[in-house]
């Protein structure tokens, strides 16, 4: 029976230490995080060096890797201190840094020789000679531009052995990502230095000039022009990604919640494991897709992988309502004798509500909340307070770090 031995990694985003641990518990083979500087997600939770140390210890004890994104396009002065930053990352045991700026690449080589460098998607790598160029510079991996097709990746793999990382899930820039300065010009916020104001998702008038008079092209009552992309999901096409020779399957979203990160990591790692264990008898489990829709924020598409995206892969008008689930609680412990679980509340819920428990390895079950007790063992109807500890009877065994969601 054929097996895929060099299975690609599932690479998940981690906005903070809790998300890092949860992503890894839920099957991510690697996570990427931001430091206190040099990244593009100034508003995502970013890691102090101490948090990185703890994250690396946690990841390495489970055979997982931690990458740090330092993919800012630096102006004069922005790279100050970057040498010490990279040296510290290397000492901490960070597995690789993600960079797009060649000045930062040079600084990293000099200050932290041996620290692997991955080229960020901001550098828009779209052909195999570009990959060969970065290999000749000494990079270990290239994150592809989101504009490449699956056939182009196959072709790249025939021409180069540098590691290839490609996005499989999440929100997408509608531009070649490093080549967009809408935010800079519209609101003085530098997209390539973490200031992106998502101007592409605004609504615009489209018009022609008749002398000095603007004449709109937007039909009466029609939706205004917009450039908002739906999200990417390659869940149904992972066999294509794997067989094309992609080494790392990247999930977008350092700003996303624990609920999102755990769910998406769980689904993708399950699907990849299932395929690689027996690719010739693989069948897609629709339950994986159902699970993804529980955390989806926009409609989903395959981006550029099979065709140049049409109007169907853009958001015009009112977005379709996607039923939203809420992260309600996290399991802290479970007593098999009494079938009572101790939970930490994350969102208000109460007796009578239908909830769903899920755990690593794609374990799921639904039940109705029948009973609830507070920390002192007093029966309660609802769990209204953030982070309060409660106990309840569960229908099936659970483990610490199982999560509970509700509609």
């Amino acid at each position, binding site marked *: 029976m054929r097996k895929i031995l060099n299975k690609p990694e599932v690479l998940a985003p981690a906005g903070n230490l809790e998300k890092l641990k949860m992503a890894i518990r839920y099957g991510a083979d690697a996570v990427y995080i931001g430091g206190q500087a040099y990244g593009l997600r100034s508003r995502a939770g970013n890691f102090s060096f101490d948090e990185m140390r703890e994250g690396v210890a946690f990841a390495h004890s489970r055979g997982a890797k931690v990458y740090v994104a330092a993919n800012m*396009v630096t102006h004069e002065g922005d790279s100050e201190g970057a040498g010490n930053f990279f040296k510290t990352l290397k000492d901490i045991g960070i597995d690789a840094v993600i960079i797009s700026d060649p000045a930062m*690449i*040079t600084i990293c080589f000099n200050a932290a020789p041996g620290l692997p460098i991955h080229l960020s998607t901001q550098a828009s790598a*779209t052909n*195999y000679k*570009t990959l060969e160029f970065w290999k000749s510079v000494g990079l270990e991996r290239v994150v592809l531009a989101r504009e490449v097709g699956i056939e*182009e990746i196959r072709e790249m793999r025939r021409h180069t052995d540098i590691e290839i990382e490609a996005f499989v899930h999440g929100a997408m820039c509608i531009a070649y990502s490093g080549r*967009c300065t809408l935010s800079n010009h519209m609101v003085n916020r530098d997209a390539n230095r973490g200031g992106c104001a998502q101007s592409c998702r605004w609504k615009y008038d489209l018009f022609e000039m008749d002398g000095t008079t603007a004449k709109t092209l937007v039909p009466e009552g029609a939706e205004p022009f917009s450039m908002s992309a739906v999200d990417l999901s390659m869940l149904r096409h992972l066999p294509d990604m794997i067989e094309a020779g992609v080494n790392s399957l990247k999930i977008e979203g350092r700003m996303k919640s624990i609920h999102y990160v755990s769910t998406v990591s769980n689904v993708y790692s399950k699907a990849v494991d299932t395929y690689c264990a027996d690719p010739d008898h693989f069948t897609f489990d629709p339950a994986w897709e159902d699970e993804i829709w529980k955390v989806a924020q926009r409609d989903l598409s395959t981006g550029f992988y099979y065709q140049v995206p049409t*109007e169907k892969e853009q958001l015009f008008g009112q977005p379709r309502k996607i039923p939203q689930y809420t992260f309600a609680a996290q399991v802290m412990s479970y007593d098999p004798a009494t079938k009572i679980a101790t939970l930490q509340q994350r969102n208000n819920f109460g007796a009578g509500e239908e909830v769903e428990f899920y755990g690593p390895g794609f374990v799921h079950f639904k039940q109705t909340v029948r009973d609830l007790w507070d920390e002192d063992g007093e029966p309660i109807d609802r769990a209204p307070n953030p982070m309060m500890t409660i106990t309840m009877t569960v229908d099936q065994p659970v483990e610490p770090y199982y999560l509970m969601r509700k509609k």
Partner: protein
Amino acid sequence: MIKIIATAESEAQAEALLRAGADTLYVGGHPFGLRMPRALGTDQIQAIVQMAHALGKKVTVACNALMHNKQIEKLDSYLSQLAEMGVDAVTVGDPGAIFTLEELSLPLPYIYDAETLVTSAEQIEFWMKRGAAGAVAARELTLTELKEIQAKLDQPIEILAYGPTCIHQSGRPLLTNYYHYTDLDERSDSDRGLYLRDPKNPDSQYPIFEDEDGTHIFSTEDLSLMAELQELYDCGLHTWKLDGVLLHGETFVKITALFAEAKKALESGTFEPTGFCNRLRELQPLSRPLGTGFYLKKPDDVK
């Protein structure tokens, strides 16, 4: 020594631009050159090279596209043809093109031009060490930053002195997609003359068009550093590009002539900006306001 680089859209315009005082002509087109006023084939480029060289002037060819596999595969023979016809330099914005130049080891210097991605002297040094003969600075830099960068380099960096600034390139046909969504029967090419406006900013007017490389959006204002030329000159920013991607024919030639005249005045110490600025405003199309872009902003204004 100030050098004026001007885009050329045809052999006829090339000739007029050379007469008007352009030092280097910048030509090319899909599938290798990005956002040129008109795509010129190798025959036309060859004729322009001969014309320029006969007058002791130069020609740079745009190879600055973000290239996909099918483009990079054809780049070998294109570069070899350019080298053979004696093209003076190419611009590149994709490191795959640099890798190709290295494989071919052609006598064809390259200038690194990745639009938004050239923002520090250290970056330019990286490309110079890898063989680049020069670099084009991002339009999003302030004068303060440009001065700092230039002070660290021996080679003058190239800056946009006149013309539109591209602020967005998408691989998607954004206009076509919108037309399909709204059942509009419309054109999307650059000659159609379409704009976007952000309703929150009534003065905004962003040119937009589609071509084989996707969708391109430009800033509201055409950049003009006419009023700032003395300062550019004094701090060693001597390589000026005039970009006619949205401005065709005779008007662009006249504007080039005006900058060439300003250059002479600067070099002879008689430059007086007010007259030049007034004359530029008279030539400038009404639909395209002039501005100074990021040039006069403070670096800290941009977050």
